[in-house]
């Protein structure tokens, strides 16, 4: 049972990293949102498994929140948003996929080295979880750095946040309040960013952040 619990948790957390890497090379916005929804589903499964293994019923609630908000409400809202903005067919010219993927792999390796070395004394399950969580966080950050479109930056931010939730649930005994507040802060951030998107759009007829920079008259 111990072995199985570890393997399944490892499987889910590893899938989360894999989906994060998938996010990196999606150049259509609607596909990006779908992959993000898929990531949220994997996250919910992972958290639910943790709840089962740790015998912590409140984690089921976290999983339910992740599933309902991140896998359903936010993706649906984002789909509607890009449809209203008329950018659902847009192809985002991200930085070249090859180098981005290589950088992503490098980040995963880096986080493995850092975490496995720093937490030599900790429980094996928590170590693996933390390493994967850090990878997800770094990949989300990488996505925010490489994308120009505001919507994909939002998705990068939220996938970063998925990594945080993975870390929070993987560590035993994290207070429930922390998880709840993290989940709600993301929701609030999503609303705020959504409003901003429309404001940017109203003013510049585009959600490409390039427009903001051009407006400031900066040289990139």
């Amino acid at each position, binding site marked *: 049972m111990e072995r199985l619990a570890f393997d399944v948790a490892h499987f889910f957390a590893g899938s989360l990293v894999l989906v994060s890497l998938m996010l990196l090379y999606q150049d259509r916005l609607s596909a990006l949102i779908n992959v993000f929804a898929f990531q949220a589903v994997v996250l919910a499964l992972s958290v639910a498994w943790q709840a089962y293994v740790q015998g912590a019923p409140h984690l089921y609630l976290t999983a339910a929140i992740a599933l309902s908000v991140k896998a359903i409400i936010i993706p649906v809202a984002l789909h509607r948003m890009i449809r209203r903005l008329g950018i659902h067919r847009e192809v985002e010219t991200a930085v070249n996929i090859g180098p981005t993927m290589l950088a992503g792999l490098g980040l995963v390796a880096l986080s493995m080295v850092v975490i496995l070395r720093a937490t030599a004394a900790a429980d094996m399950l928590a170590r693996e979880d933390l390493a994967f969580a850090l990878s997800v966080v770094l990949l989300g950050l990488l996505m*925010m750095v490489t994308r120009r479109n505001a919507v994909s930056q939002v998705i990068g931010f939220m996938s970063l946040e998925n990594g945080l939730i993975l870390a929070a649930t993987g560590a035993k005994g994290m207070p429930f309040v922390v998880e709840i507040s993290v989940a709600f802060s993301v929701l609030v951030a999503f609303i705020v960013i959504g409003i901003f998107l429309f404001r940017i759009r109203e003013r510049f007829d585009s959600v490409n952040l390039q427009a903001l920079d051009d407006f400031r008259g900066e040289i990139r």
Partner: protein
Amino acid sequence: MVALPPIVANLWCVAALLVIGAAAVAIGKRNWARWLVYGCSLTVSAVSCTIAVAHLIAAPAAGSEIVLPLGLPWIGANFRIDVLAAFFLAVIDLGAVAASLYGLGYGRHESAPERVLPFFPVFLAGMNMVILAADAFTFLFAWEFMSLASWALVMTHHRDEENRRAGYVYIVMASLGTLALLLAFGLMAGPDGGYTFAAMRAHGTPPGLAGLVLAFALLGTGSKAGLVPLHVWLPLAHPAAPSHVSALMSGVMTKVAIYGFIRITFDLLGPVSWWWSVPVLLAGVVTATLGVLSALMQNDLKRALAYSTIENIGLIFVALGLAFAFQGNGMKAAAALAMTAALFHVLNHSLFKSLLFFGAGAVLNATGERRMEKLGGLQNRMPATGLLFLIGSVAISALPPLNGFASEWLMLQAILLSPDLPQWALKLLIPAVGAMLALATALAAACFVRAFGISFLGRPRSAAASDAHEVDRLSIAAMAMLAVLCLLAGVLPAFVIDALAPVVQAVTGTRMPVQTVAWLSIVPIAESRSSYNGLLVFFFIVSSASIAAFAIHRLASDRLRRAPAWDCGFPDGSPVTQYTADSFAQPLRRVFGGFAFRAREEVHMPPPGDGSPARLTVTMHDLVWEFIYEPIARLVNALAVRLNHLQFLTIRRYLSLVFGVLVFLLLVLASWG
């Protein structure tokens, strides 16, 4: 009634001072606020001083300590009073009593009392807290509290451009000093974070780090005390404050810095090594000489006093350096002698420097002038102030029988023991230091002959000086109190040395022999070597002077005659023909000014036939400022210009920057162990 432990009583005093400060914010503008604030400060400081003196005399082996649930949660705020703290507390609160008494009278002339009254007691509280602190966090907090309170007092008259500059330079240097102390404490706390002084004492510091801690301690406390080249703020900031605050900053706050240095090096850093003495001696002697030379060149009375503070700090650091040298070589008796000299001079300097600043404040009140070129003839108009200023000048010039002589004599006695040291470096260095010390002392005497002579003697050089009136009785009482203490400490140094013995015992592990024996002579090492009897010298001076006066007045003529002064054959009655401060300093400027200040004199003669006067212009450079601070300022400016474009990046660039730094830090972490 249950007797309070001394530390609790002292902390109550600090709390009372803080409450007075808070109350002063509300009532600062009222006429009577001065009486309340200074009166309460006076009472509280007197109580605190009494507790400290009682603790010093009782000298219990264990200090009195307490931990308050404030500050860092896992440490709390540790406070402790031991004999070393008690001595400095006594010095500080004595200065505070005098300054409060003086403030009662002097404060009447303050144009913006609401900017002085709240900060004055708070400043006192800050200084007390530094001394009582027993962990790094509390110490640094109190240190910074003291710096900020004094900064606010420096900025009292902030509409004056010069004061704003003084405040700016002061706060920059104070921040630098705190940073250095922070690093020093961080190194001493070690990787386990033992931030209480007790923990630092217990686990000690590895010898490799000790040098670094010493450097940071010198930097941190030296910047507050005014060690060259960290002194640049001091001659700007000390004169800018109201005079009783100048007295506190110069006479007392610099002693807090000395306390910090002694506490860190002798107490917390573990066994003393002899080589520590080399940087301390060098810093001390350069400070002493440059300080007094600068004081000699100043025209502003208060600024000259501030530079003289720098000189005295240099003397104290020299004595501490000697104590390092002897202690590191196991010469316990000599180390005790040097440490006694340092502590004695700490007390003395706080007494006479406060007295002199009070005198300068009285002159400023009476005439509205700080420039010596506009003073003169004040002895006839302000006889009491003049006499008291003279006593202070004699004391600071280290003339017997006053207290300055006693402590500097002890310092020179310690220097004379240097041939017994095993290291040749010290054998050669210390006599050279002694020679420079003697030079500095002689120059200090010249400096105060000049300060007193130009300001108080001769004829008034301005209408303000000729219309001057004696200041109020409270100011005079404050000055008289300090003058009497100067005289007592000078005439009866044996009592002071014996009172210092427990402190010296605690710091160096041994003490000077008991001095209050037959005839009250002080004998630092052996009777056959040297001894000094202040009382005897005093009686000799008093009796010979009285006999001479009696002889002149009785045997010659006792009639007072007034006659015109000898005018060298040029009967011009104008007071500008008198010796001026600049002309008095000219010979010394010619000898030392060339290399110390790159002084140049130029004479512009009018062409033949032109009736206009010839002009003599003197240009002097502050080399420390030009060679150290200006390059640093230029560097900072250049870097700021370079980094300016970072303020205008795009959102994505900022994110990339954060991302890059994060990855870099993770890489460092990954490749660390």
